[in-house]
């Protein structure tokens, strides 16, 4: 579905952000894109959605080159950015104006999401709170029946019940022909939703694994003392002990914490990659 080969891109000449980046994202998954500020997450999303053009390399999304921005391609993607602008019109008017561009737009699906999010269609978009605007955009994006929904920091501004509602809706909306890419810093909000997990650092994909592999290869436990057998990958001191990430040699079933996984990958990339190679 998304095939990136030898992608090179940089904002300034001579300072590449991506240097021959390769990535393949088959359809049917909710990809979690994690990374520090400036790692290249948003840039990658912009290239995938045709908002930025590669300097070198091939990007293929649903059989299209995104940079052509053909309408047949654009109706298969929907991008919800962290910051956005919505016109000062009623929801119903927005739908009336924008839905004709998406051939498979389903008004019943849209209405169902709007009801689930408890939004009022006759309300002006400019009068909605930030979180409500996000819910509206998510409802619209899902109703377009696009094959790729790209969400940049989707849970920012959502209250706690809305976050779980958001996770539930996304989990129900995924199917084998569709993919979601979620870029976020709020790793905890995305737990039990995103799979596989992609971690970026300085324009490189330093980690790309699904949950099954993760739980087979890594173990996260709380211990009073740090292990001394060399299996330690990462540790964080917590109240009364440590949360540690180790190689899962005993094939234990442990709860994976995305935030700790992220820190482990970023601080000990070489060891993590070595574990996953075996």
């Amino acid at each position, binding site marked *: 579905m998304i095939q990136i080969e030898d992608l090179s891109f940089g904002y300034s000449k001579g300072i590449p952000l991506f240097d021959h980046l390769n990535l393949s994202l088959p359809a049917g998954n909710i990809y979690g894109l994690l990374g520090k500020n400036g790692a290249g997450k948003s840039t990658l999303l*912009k290239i995938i*959605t*045709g*908002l*930025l*053009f590669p300097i070198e390399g091939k990007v293929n999304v649903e059989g299209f080159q995104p940079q*052509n*921005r*053909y*309408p*047949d391609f*654009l*109706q298969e*993607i*929907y*991008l919800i*950015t962290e*910051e*956005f*602008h919505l*016109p000062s019109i009623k929801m119903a008017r927005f739908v009336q*104006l*924008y839905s*004709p*561009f*998406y051939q498979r737009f389903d008004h019943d699906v849209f209405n169902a999401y709007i009801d689930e999010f408890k939004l009022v269609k006759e309300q002006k978009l400019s009068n909605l709170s930030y979180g409500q605007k996000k819910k509206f955009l998510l409802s619209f994006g899902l109703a377009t029946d696009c094959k790729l929904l790209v969400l940049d920091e989707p849970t920012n501004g959502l209250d706690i019940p809305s976050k779980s509602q958001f996770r539930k809706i996304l989990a129900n909306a995924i199917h084998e022909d569709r993919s979601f890419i979620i870029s976020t810093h709020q790793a905890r909000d995305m737990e039990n939703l995103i799979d596989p997990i992609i971690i970026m650092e300085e324009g490189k994909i330093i980690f790309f694994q699904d949950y099954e592999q993760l739980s087979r290869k890594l173990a996260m436990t709380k211990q009073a003392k740090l292990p001394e057998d060399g299996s330690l990958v990462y540790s964080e001191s917590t109240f009364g002990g440590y949360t540690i990430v180790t190689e899962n040699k005993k094939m234990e079933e442990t709860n994976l914490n995305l935030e700790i996984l992220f820190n482990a990958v970023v601080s000990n990339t070489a060891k993590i990659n070595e574990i996953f190679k075996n």
Partner: protein
Amino acid sequence: MHRSNHFNFSRFWSYLKMELFRSRKGIWMVFGISFGTLFILGLILTPFIEQDMTIYDHNDGYTFHILIGGFVLSSLTFRDLGNSLKRYRYLTLPVSALEKFLCMWFLTTICWVIVYTIAYYCFTLIATPIGKLLFSPLKFTNFNPFSGIALSAIKYYLVIQGIFMVGATHFKGYILPKTVLTVIAAGLACGIIFVLFLSDLFIAEHDCAGYECEHLSTIGENKFWSIIKWIFWWALAPVCWIITYQGLKEKEA
């Protein structure tokens, strides 16, 4: 690639309706300001300022406002590109660059000329009797939208308008002043080149009295001048439209 990826009438029509709806406030403002100034400055104040005026015709007002109003609207055509938040939605909206360009070209050329001319004609139907009532000795002539002056104004507008569309795709913010400044700078550059090449000719003794200048008539007959005129009337606008379309296609977020 499928032809519908460049132009699809139904999509074009939806986009046209959307743009008209989105621009409704801007269009009303341009009309309001145009006809407000036409009524107050043009109709009410001009007879006071120009005391020796005997005949009032509406041609000057029409020419001035079709140009200025049209340039303002043309420079607003791709305003979303200048706003980082609006740009994402604008560029990812499933409409081709050709459709976006054609829609805005259609609205700012054909639609603007027709709607403004009709509105101006209606305005003169109301303004003329009011003017006659207020300034009884002054003779008011009716506005003829098919007169040579009106048609000439339309011709000039259609040619120059493209420059403002280029500005709309290439400048971020303050598009109208930036475009006007660029045009002035280009005009100055041309003027300097003109002076550098022809200053000796004009300094030398020749017959010159106001508009009647020996050299100007000679230059007018020159082949080079004919080429410049041809470029202005036939090449400037299409080149500007092509640059605008390319600018839209190559725009990144």
